[in-house]
């Protein structure tokens, strides 16, 4: 089963368990080979060519138990109270891993398969596009019925490290988050019964789920769908940007302007790092910052509703800034088209975009920092150093439903 945290397993194994581990690996490889062969066997109706990978994605190690565990350089460090916030060499927050490679790969097929939407026109990948930083480049996503989803698609990079999900923090796991977009009429517009029917009617999916969830029986369940989607999303790891190389000790990874930008970023004048805290560049909290809604859009109460707390009115989750240069436009409703406009918003003074008549309890770090134009430019330069898409997964050429994996393949693959 997936673990919520990296374990405290023994670091040194005696020779006997090591041997056992080798045997298990061999067994796993053998099993993978068997599956590949079985896939070609007519009796399994697997002439469809879909095979789940038995290998873990890059940055993950295949463990003896057949699960994948994350390996990253930040694991050499620790952090105060284990909360994963701090400075350059600080460990990351607790993360999700421990899924089987087959679950991860099944999640990849599901993620890109429009069969998950009510009318078969949108996949998760329609709004979380690999070529757009796993956002969609739109101010607010557009659902299957052409409706404005109300908020921008957040990036999925490094979601393995988050403790709460959706802009208003109303879900506490990836699994709990999944039904939100799947069944919202403003987003993918599906219904649980229809989703399960369409998957269970598909022989390929039935076979792949059996392979990914050997103990789960013959019928595809909602829980297994969510687990597979979560398994895939937790492999979207972006921790090897130029900033990271600087943080680990290679000073030349950033140029002088970028380092100056880092120093503006973490200074208590700008206070960016107080909420967008390294190494994840989010502290995982809800903050009321008073970002504007686009013209004609009603005020979004955000986390007020989630926590039934008037003081969190207009509060949203602090988003990660990793790959931020790839995910314009910005803020919960896409109010700003560029990073420059976004940093300028924070510089225009506390509450500069709060609508008349609204009383918001703005976060105390929202101040009036009076940064110079030069400093704003340095900030933007620094934000560009947080880009790392080396582990972008492969978009399947085709998915088990036979539908096109993305709603607009031409646009997506440019």
């Amino acid at each position, binding site marked *: 089963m997936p673990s919520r945290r990296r374990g405290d397993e023994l670091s040194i194994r005696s020779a006997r368990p090591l041997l056992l581990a080798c045997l298990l690996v061999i067994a796993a490889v053998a099993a993978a080979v068997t599956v590949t062969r079985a896939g070609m066997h007519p009796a399994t109706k697997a002439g469809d060519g879909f095979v789940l990978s038995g290998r873990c994605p890059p940055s993950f190690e295949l463990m003896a138990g057949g699960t994948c565990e994350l390996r990253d350089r930040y694991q050499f460090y620790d952090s*105060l109270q284990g909360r994963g916030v701090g400075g350059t*060499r600080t460990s990351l927050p607790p993360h999700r891993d421990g899924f089987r490679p087959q679950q991860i790969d099944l999640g990849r097929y599901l993620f890109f398969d429009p069969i998950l939407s009510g009318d078969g026109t949108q996949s998760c990948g329609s709004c979380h596009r690999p070529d757009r930083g796993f956002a969609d480049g739109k101010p607010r996503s557009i659902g299957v019925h052409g409706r404005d989803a109300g908020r921008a698609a957040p990036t999925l990079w490094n979601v393995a490290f988050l403790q709460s999900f959706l802009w208003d923090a109303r879900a506490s796991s990836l699994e709990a988050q999944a039904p939100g977009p799947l069944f919202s009429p403003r987003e993918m517009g599906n219904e649980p019964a229809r989703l399960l029917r369409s998957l269970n009617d598909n022989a390929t999916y039935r076979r792949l789920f059996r392979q990914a969830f050997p103990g789960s029986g013959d019928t595809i369940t909602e829980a297994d769908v969510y687990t597979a989607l979560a398994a895939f999303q937790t492999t979207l790891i972006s921790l090897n940007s130029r900033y990271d190389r600087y943080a680990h000790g290679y000073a030349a990874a950033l140029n002088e302007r970028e380092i100056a930008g880092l120093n503006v970023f973490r200074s208590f004048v700008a206070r960016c790092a107080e909420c967008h805290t390294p190494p994840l560049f989010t502290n995982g909290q809800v903050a009321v910052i008073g970002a504007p809604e686009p013209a004609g859009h009603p005020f979004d109460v955000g986390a007020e509703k989630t926590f039934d707390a008037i003081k969190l009115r207009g509060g949203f989750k602090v988003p990660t800034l990793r790959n931020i240069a790839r995910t314009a436009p910005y803020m919960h409703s896409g109010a700003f088209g560029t990073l420059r406009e976004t940093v300028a918003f924070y510089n225009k003074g506390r509450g500069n975009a709060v609508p008349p008549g609204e009383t918001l309890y703005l976060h105390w770090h929202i101040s009036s920092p009076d940064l110079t134009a030069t400093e704003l430019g340095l900030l933007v330069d620094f934000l560009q150093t947080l880009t790392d898409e080396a582990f972008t997964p492969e978009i399947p050429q085709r998915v088990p439903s036979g539908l096109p994996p993305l709603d607009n393949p031409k646009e997506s693959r440019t």
Partner: protein
Amino acid sequence: MNKIVKTVLAIAAIAAAFAGGAYLGRASKSDMVITSSAGGAEYSGGFKAEGEAAEKVKAAANAGSLKSVAGAPGPHSVVVKDGESILQAVKNAEPGTTIRVMPGTYSETVYIDKDNIRIIGVIEAGRRPVLDGKKQLNDAILYSGNNFVVENLEIRNYKGNGVMGQAGNNFEIRNNVIVDTGVYGIFPQLGQNGVVEHNVVSGIADAAIYVGMSDNVHVAHNEVFDSVAGIEIENSRHAIVENNYVHDNSGGLLAFVTPGLPIKTTQDVIFRHNFVVNNNTKNFGAPGSTVAGIPSGTGVLVMAADDVVIEGNVISGNKVAGVIVTDHGHAANITVDPESEPNSDRVRLLDNVMLNNGYETIPEGKALLLAEGKGGKNLDIIRVGPSPGSCIVNRHQYVTAGVGDFGECDFTHTANVSTYLLPPVPPRRSTSASAARSRSSASAAAATSTTAA
């Protein structure tokens, strides 16, 4: 002359005795408990180092070297002279370098993203090296490395911080003069095991010394004044604040939980043997800042922090109150945090000297006094909001409001607790199995890090 004084004193004594008697008459249901703090029970709570660390703490205490948490100086040393750059020296330095800075004026931001760097000012006949931000630069010293030491500097006219730390462990910030450096004077954040001592900090728009989200910190022998907040312990654990002179700020000593931060608690703080005097400076905190809500005239403020011991301080001339204990619900400008416990649990008010506090208190204070039949008196201690498990020693000595349900404390002193500091804690090395498996590549990374600035 002498006789007149004696007579006046005698009359005053009679009057006091009469008033006291009347009071005791009314309060006779609960007898006055007079506790001597000399030789009383010692504090059994608080942080205790464990295992090997405990032995080292004991050994260090016996050797008189408790305040050295950054380890011994490294083998390298360079000198920076007036006209040169401290930052350039840091960039060139290998970990383990002591950078001696000669008197002169240096106008730069010095950031330290590597371990074991010491920046030590050389004071010549009273002349210090001066870092001058000219109100253009943001921060003077910005460190994220471990085992960082900064001493003997004079830091002026920055916009953000004098010294700011982000996650460095084992820090020593000592003997610096910091004037008008913007938001904070000295601000270690997200670090463990650090000393802030013998600094003189003034003219700061938020807290002169602000320990934020840190563990095992010792703040001692500092003078902090003319700032909005003197010394603030926020979302931190195991802090001792002792022997500081905290005067002429808007608020003197603060122990807070600020909502919305990733570290959710403030716990185990000892405020002892400080002078907390005349903290009546007009609050010039930035609108919206947490400290902007502190009433000017506050000696000690505890908000949502747990296990705070207040002992042996001289708290005088603070016009709103000597000590305020409150919670998130009663602080108007504080947001909420579903994950933060909003009350100040187990505040322990041991013997303190309180003089002439609360002579111009806030309406809430007046109302509470009135409700308790103490209208018109000068308020020493006020508690607003739940504060379960709290206690007070010799309550009869003070004018109090809202502490009726505080019990007697089961200890009278913390003399047995000399420090919460540790021997240098390992610099951010993971003990997890995954790291251990690939430690060899970590060593390689460390070997290449000598070029980092």
